[in-house]
């Protein structure tokens, strides 16, 4: 079997077993219980909630992120093992949403960690979440969900943006090269 074929099979099987860790900030966490319980039942697609990022494949950011929370999110994201995917919930992760003018919440999540998929809405309905997961599976199968590859490739850019955010200054960016880029 050629390596490409093997990768294809691997993707085909792996998409049916997405384990997620949800980072419950904001109100998006409230939409998860109906998705998981008997009304919508996401487990029928092999999606299961996990307790720690070590075990998980998908990171759900379910709402706004303050800078302080962003630090934890980056920590959690880096603790996840490849291949890993990120889904951003609602307007807050896209452009800040109702926190568009807040001094302490980030406006665009994809500047700090690679986001594979956004779900629009404030908040998105459970149907939208289900749809997003199906879309993610499709992307995985086609090999389009490559956020984790992007994170490796543009690691210095992501780190730069994270440093800017953590220090609340645009100019105070240290030399990334010294950091052990993975």
């Amino acid at each position, binding site marked *: 079997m050629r390596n490409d074929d093997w990768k294809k099979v691997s993707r085909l099987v792996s998409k049916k077993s997405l384990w997620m860790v949800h980072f419950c900030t904001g109100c998006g966490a409230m939409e998860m219980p109906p998705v998981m319980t008997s009304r919508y039942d996401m487990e029928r697609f092999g999606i299961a909630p996990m307790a720690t990022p070590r075990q998980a494949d998908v990171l759900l950011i379910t709402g706004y992120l303050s*800078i302080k929370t962003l630090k934890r999110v980056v920590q959690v994201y880096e603790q996840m093992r490849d291949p890993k995917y990120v889904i951003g919930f609602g307007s807050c992760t896209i452009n*800040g949403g109702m926190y568009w*003018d*807040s*001094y302490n919440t980030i406006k665009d999540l994809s500047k700090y960690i690679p986001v594979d998929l956004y779900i629009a809405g404030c908040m998105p309905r459970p149907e939208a979440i289900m749809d997003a997961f199906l879309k993610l599976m499709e992307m995985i199968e086609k090999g389009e969900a490559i956020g984790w590859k992007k994170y490796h490739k*543009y690691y210095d850019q992501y780190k730069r*943006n994270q440093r800017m955010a953590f*220090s*609340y200054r645009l100019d105070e960016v240290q030399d990334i090269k010294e950091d052990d880029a993975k």
Partner: protein
Amino acid sequence: MMAKELFPDAQEIRKGRIRIEVEPEKVGEIVKKLKDNGYDHFVMLSCIDWINDGQFELVYHMWSYEYREHVMISTRIPRDGGSMVTLRDLFPQIETYEREIHEMFGVDFIGNPRLGEFILEGWPHMPPMRKDFDTEKFVKDFYYKIPEVKEE
């Protein structure tokens, strides 16, 4: 004894809601007196930025379960370099409110040992709850200026 009897010049906004305006130096004394007279619940400490007057207003909220009465002790301190003596010896929980007000408004509470970083981590700018802090401008100058990740 009820607050009205203790402080005859207190202003009764409506039933069960008393407001006392005092000098900053007298706040400790009054809070202690109220605490000894049945007002044993310290509700919170809040701060208002009167930017046109150049003053911060600190409001100490207290509640008595006995009289079912809410007392607000209001005091004003100067906006620039204003400071206040900590009351953490009377009510330990005041410490937390003082930390928050220190972080958000920059008021110095003399005697509070924990006035460090509280909610914000590494915030280098002006305390953000002050009225002269323009959040919209800050967001535009900072968050929107963070560059997108460029893909080659």
